[in-house]
Structure formats: structure tokens, C-alpha cells
């Protein structure tokens, strides 16, 4: 039939965008290191194929959209929020300050003239703060906490897992038993213990240090006046990191145990390549795809856990907010004033769903075998279509 290869890959808009993206990245690297693009032609093609396979998965695209939205909102949301989270409007609505969603409230002066008009698309909380703004600020806290947990926890887990798996014997035994101890720690109780002890220790350090204050207020998009509130958030981060790395150590140790049996590891050893080079250049890159999948899935879990901890009052303190805290504050008014629970809860749900969908799709796309099978499935479908057209 002479099915041309270009026809087998029908490129849609998304595929062209991702191709451009890969080409862009390649040309940037080529600028730093001349000749890189020519040397790594097959790598670039494989990346493009990876995106192509990813684009064929509707859950993956939905997840990616949610993630990108979450990250963008987390990064820029606070600056576009209609009101600051410190803007207590105290607009009376009935017997509380809780304004329902989609309400325009007008403030009149004594003469009955409209002085100001407020529009609350998602309603307000008990202090009369705009809920939409609070959710935008809360996204930043969730994003930052999940990133910090991953950035701190994953390297610890990776390094310990590599060492335990590769060296084996007593080293392995010691590392894995310590890991077991940490795995046995209940995250919740650890976090409660931390929350009761740590903030009082950290607070004076942050409050007394002008530089730290500035850094944290930029990172959390919070007012410098809330510096004292950064302490409980940090203690939550520390608590999550402490219970988070053992999972990585276990998984990586398991992967290393099988990866080190590869002949190329033995060959590298026999050729005098140093142990650290073997670990980080030959073993780690070969087991990186399950780690990436795990990280993606874990970011969702961390968001959920952080929301859970602040729901029981351990994370952000008034007036700072995160998603768990908004739900916690709104719970007492539920279900009459439903918006305080539903909207932040839905935001959490979408963010976690996004990371999970992407994680699932990445699992298929990063594994060369399943990637190949996705590719063949697409080709088969395409050639089947053409065949039916000819008949």
C-alpha cells in the first residue's frame, strides 16, 4: 500500500506545538554547547515521540492543562487577585459577613449614594474577604509547600536509596532500618508534635531576620507583617519531608538492586569507572522514569496532605490562608454557606487530579516499551482508516 511514514503520524496542533517546544529546547542547549543538536538527533526525535504519545492520551492532556493552570495560578494568582488576603471588608450580609457567590454588594453613605461597589464571584469568608482572592493566595502556598517537600525529600531518598541498593550488606541494612523507622512514624502525629514545638523556636529566627522575612514573604506571596505565621508552615513542611523521603529510598533501592545487575554496570566497573560515576551516570538515569512518575503522583499527595494538616489547624494561621485552612474556617457554616467549603475543596480536587492524571500518562509515555506500543496502536488505527477509505 506504500503507507508513507508522514501519513502514519498525523500531526495535530498540539503535536506541532510540542515539536516546536522540543526544537526550542534543543536550540537553546545547542547555543550553550555547540554541536549538541547534531550529536543528539536521535534523542530529540525520541523526545518528540514522547510528546506525540502523550498528546494521544486525553486524560494526560486534561491533567497537563490542570497542572499548568495550577502552576500559573500558584505563581501569578496572588498578583492578579482582586483583593489582598489582608483586605477585611466586613460587609454585613444578613447577620454575618458571609456574602454568597456572584453577589454585587453596594456600600452606601448616609445620604444613600453608592460610594463603592464590590463584586464577589465566589462569595466572601467570615471576615468579609473575597473568596476568589483567598483561593488564589492559597494556591501559592500549596504549590510552594509541595515543591519544597519534593525538592528536599526526593534527593535524600534518592541518595540513600542508591547507596543502600548499590553497596548492599551492612550499609544497606543500616539505611533501610532507619528508613523503616521513619516509615513507621505517623505523619499526622509527627506534624502535630512539630507544630507544638517547632514554631516557637523558628518564629524568633524569622521575625528577627529581615532578610528571611523578605524572602518568605515573596515566596508565599504574603505580607511581611505575617512573618510570624511562616513558622507553622515551615514546621508542616519539615514534618512532611521527614515522613516523605523513606518512600523514595525504598523504591529506589529496589530499582537499584535490579539495575546494578545489568552487565553495563559491571562493564563500567571493569573499565575503571568510579563508583560515584556508575551510581549517578549509569544507574540513576536508567531508573529515573519510575522516579519521575512517582514524583508527579506525589505532588498531588503532598497537596492533599498539606491541606489535611492545615484543615486540623496546623498549617497557615490567620490571617494567612491555604486551601485546607479555608475549608476549616468554612466548615462551621456548612452546609448553609456552602461556598466556603466547596470552592477551595474543588480547587484542591482539581490540582490533585491533574497531577495524578499526568503521572498515570507519564508512566506509559516514559517507558520505552509502552511508548512503542502506543505508537504502533496509533499507526494501526491510521492505516486502518486509510484502508477503509480506499475500499
Amino acid at each position, binding site marked *: 500500500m506504500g503507507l508513507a511514514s508522514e501519513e502514519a503520524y498525523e500531526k495535530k496542533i498540539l503535536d506541532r506545538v510540542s515539536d516546536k517546544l522540543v526544537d526550542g529546547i534543543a536550540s537553546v542547549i545547542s547555543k550553550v554547547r555547540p554541536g549538541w543538536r547534531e550529536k543528539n538527533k536521535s534523542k530529540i526525535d525520541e523526545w518528540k515521540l514522547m510528546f506525540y504519545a502523550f498528546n494521544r492520551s486525553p486524560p494526560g492532556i486534561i491533567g497537563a492543562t490542570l497542572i499548568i493552570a495550577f502552576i500559573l495560578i500558584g505563581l501569578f494568582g496572588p498578583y492578579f487577585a482582586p483583593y489582598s488576603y489582608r483586605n477585611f471588608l466586613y460587609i454585613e450580609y444578613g447577620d454575618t459577613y458571609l456574602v454568597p457567590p456572584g453577589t454585587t454588594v453596594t456600600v452606601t453613605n448616609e445620604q444613600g449614594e453608592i460610594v463603592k461597589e464590590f463584586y464577589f464571584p465566589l462569595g466572601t469568608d467570615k471576615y468579609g474577604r473575597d473568596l476568589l482572592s483567598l483561593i488564589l493566595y492559597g494556591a501559592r502556598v500549596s504549590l510552594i509547600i509541595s515543591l519544597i517537600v519534593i525538592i528536599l525529600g526526593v534527593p535524600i531518598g534518592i541518595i540513600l536509596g542508591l547507596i543502600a541498593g548499590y553497596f548492599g550488606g551492612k550499609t544497606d541494612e543500616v539505611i533501610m532500618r532507619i528508613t523503616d523507622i521513619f516509615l513507621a512514624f505517623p505523619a499526622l502525629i509527627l506534624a502535630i508534635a512539630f507544630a507544638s514545638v517547632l514554631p516557637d523556636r523558628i518564629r524568633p529566627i524569622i521575625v528577627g531576620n529581615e532578610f528571611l522575612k523578605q524572602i518568605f514573604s515573596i515566596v508565599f506571596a504574603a505580607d511581611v507583617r505575617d512573618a510570624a505565621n511562616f513558622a507553622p508552615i515551615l514546621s508542616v513542611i519539615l514534618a512532611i519531608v521527614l515522613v516523605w523521603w523513606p518512600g523514595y529510598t525504598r523504591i529506589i533501592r529496589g530499582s537499584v538492586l535490579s539495575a546494578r545487575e545489568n552487565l553495563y554496570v559491571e*562493564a563500567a566497573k*571493569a573499565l575503571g569507572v568510579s563508583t560515584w560515576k556508575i551510581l549517578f551516570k549509569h544507574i540513576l538515569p536508567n531508573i529515573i522514569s519510575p522516579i519521575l512518575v512517582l514524583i508527579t503522583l506525589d505532588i498531588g499527595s503532598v497537596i492533599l496532605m498539606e491541606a489535611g494538616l492545615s484543615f486540623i489547624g496546623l498549617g497557615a494561621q490567620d490571617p494567612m490562608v491555604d486551601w485546607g485552612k479555608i475549608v476549616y474556617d468554612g466548615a462551621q457554616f456548612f452546609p448553609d454557606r456552602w461556598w466556603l467549603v466547596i470552592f477551595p475543596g474543588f480547587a484542591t480536587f482539581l490540582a490533585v487530579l491533574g497531577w495524578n492524571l499526568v503521572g498515570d500518562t507519564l508512566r506509559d509515555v516514559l517507558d520505552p516499551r509502552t511508548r512503542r506500543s502506543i505508537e504502533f496502536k496509533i499507526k494501526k488505527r491510521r492505516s486502518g482508516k486509510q484502508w477503509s477509505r480506499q475500499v
Partner: protein
Amino acid sequence: MESSGLRRKILEIKDLHVHFYTYAGVVKAISGISFEIYEGETFCLVGETGCGKSVTSRAITKLIESPGKIVKGQVLLYRDGSPIDLLKLSDEELREIRGKEVAYIFQDPTAALDPLYSVGYQIAETMVAHNTTTWKNAFKKAIDILKSVLIPDPEERVKNYPHELSGGMRQRVVIGISLSNKPRLLIADEPTTAVDVTIQAQILDLLRNLRKEEGMTLLLITHNMGVVAEMCDRVAVMYAGKIVEIGTVHQIFKNPQHPYTKGLLRAVPNPLVRIEKLESIPGTVPNLISPPPGCRFHPRCPYRFDPCDKKEPPLIEVEGGHRVACWLHVK
């Protein structure tokens, strides 16, 4: 020993014992083997699967992993005539010797290459690991190395990943990697088992020529008597963790002394002679956890007599450089 006496030794193994501590018991994979390799020769280790050939080759640079352990013995590498015991060196000193002075070629070329890196990178890595050159020069040299192992179009091939090459080419790349630092001793562990017969001939040719050009010493491990006849200067026949016969290729093939060697040679099919059934050695390789007492070959030996199952035969010289461990030759 007329010819070999004049030549300088490059490697000498003395009374090497390697044990593997398994749940079922201690596997005495190597029990007391000794041999020496002279500069510039091709030395072969032959024997059945599981007789300890690969373990011996790995023990040379202490590549035995737990649960294996080198229990006893010396591995002397001669550098300008003076011996260094490789088993006594620290890990870092050994690392510098591995791949630089003593290099390996492994059996399965597909598995010996890391799928994530280009061929050029993997050749360059070995050179950089031994500080021979910088990355930039190493990549340039990689092209020359690919050329020397007769890979067509080396400028393009350096950029290829292992999966883009054929089995024969991969094996050439593996050879190229081990040659990159011009080792004095090249250990090839069944380099042709994983490739088909035509490529096997090419690979052997390549090894032979490279050895001549670079003046390397080659330790070839194989179970293929044809390869031995074609390639080797001297041969050691191994059985159940021991050397049973050692001599020049001529001595072993023309005048085999040990019953096991005779059996091995008879088990090789000869295309010129039509036979109904190929001869095999009766019985199986002994369990090395509890090897048979006395001569390890005696349960399968057609010539066994009184002392065979009681005392281990010594390795005695029957003619110049030809030694055999068999009671038949003890006078």
C-alpha cells in the same frame, strides 16, 4: 619451557581460591589454580559451562561480588618486570588498573552497553575515567577507535545509541571501549558466544590483528575448541574449578594427556567425518559444594584406578611446558 622461558611474564596467578557462600553451602568455584601468562601471547581458558573460567577472569581484578570471596591466592601483575599483587591493592588503586592496564570484553555486547548513552560517549568515558584525555579530545579519539575496530562510517556511528547498531557492531564497540586506553592485558570472556558464526570469524580476526598491532596480551575465555585452535598460543583446560591440563595449543591438540581433554576434543564435531552420534563425556559436572574427593574428574573418567578417588593428583610436567594433573602420568 624453551620458548616461554625467554619471554617476560605479564600475569601470574598463584594458588587462587574463590568461594561463594550460598544458603545451600560453600561453593568452591575455584580451588587452587595457578598459571602464568607471558607478554604478547594469547592464552586460552577452556572448559565446560560452570567450571570457573569467568570467575577466574573476574578474580584477576577482584571483580567478585558478594556472596563470592577470594579466599586465598595471589594475582601478580608484572609492571616492568616487578610483580604487584592485585588482590592486595586498595579499591582506588584497582580502579586505576581496571580498564587501563587490564581491560575486559564481556560476553553479551547488547547488555554491556548502557542504552542511555551514545557509543562515542561510552568510549570517551573510559578514557576520561583514567584521565587519559579531556572530554573534547576523547570524543575525537572515539572516532579513531571505531575506525580501528573496523566500523564503517565512524563519524556518524559515534553519535548512535546502542539500539541503533547491529549485534556485531555492538561487540566491536565493546572491544573498542576496552581498547581505548591501550591495555597491556585484554581479557575477553567468551567474546563470540552472543554473535552469529560469520560475525564470530570477523571478531576473532579483529582481535588477532589488534593484538598484533598493539602488542597486547590476550586472555581468551571460551568453551569453543575451534576458537582455541584458531586463536591461542597456550591453553589451560579447566574442570570443576581446577586446571587439569596446560600447554601450548600444539601440545594440547596433538597430544592431549588428560582424559577430560581427550573427551573434550572428541566431542567437537568434525565436518569431514560422518558419524552417527557425537561422542559425549558421560555423567555431569560435579556439584562444587561437595566436590568428589581425589581427582574431581574420577566419577566420569573411563581410566580411573586406585588412587583417583582418594588423593588429588599433582600438576606434573610431561614435556616442555605441558603439564597435566592426572594419576596416569605420575610415576
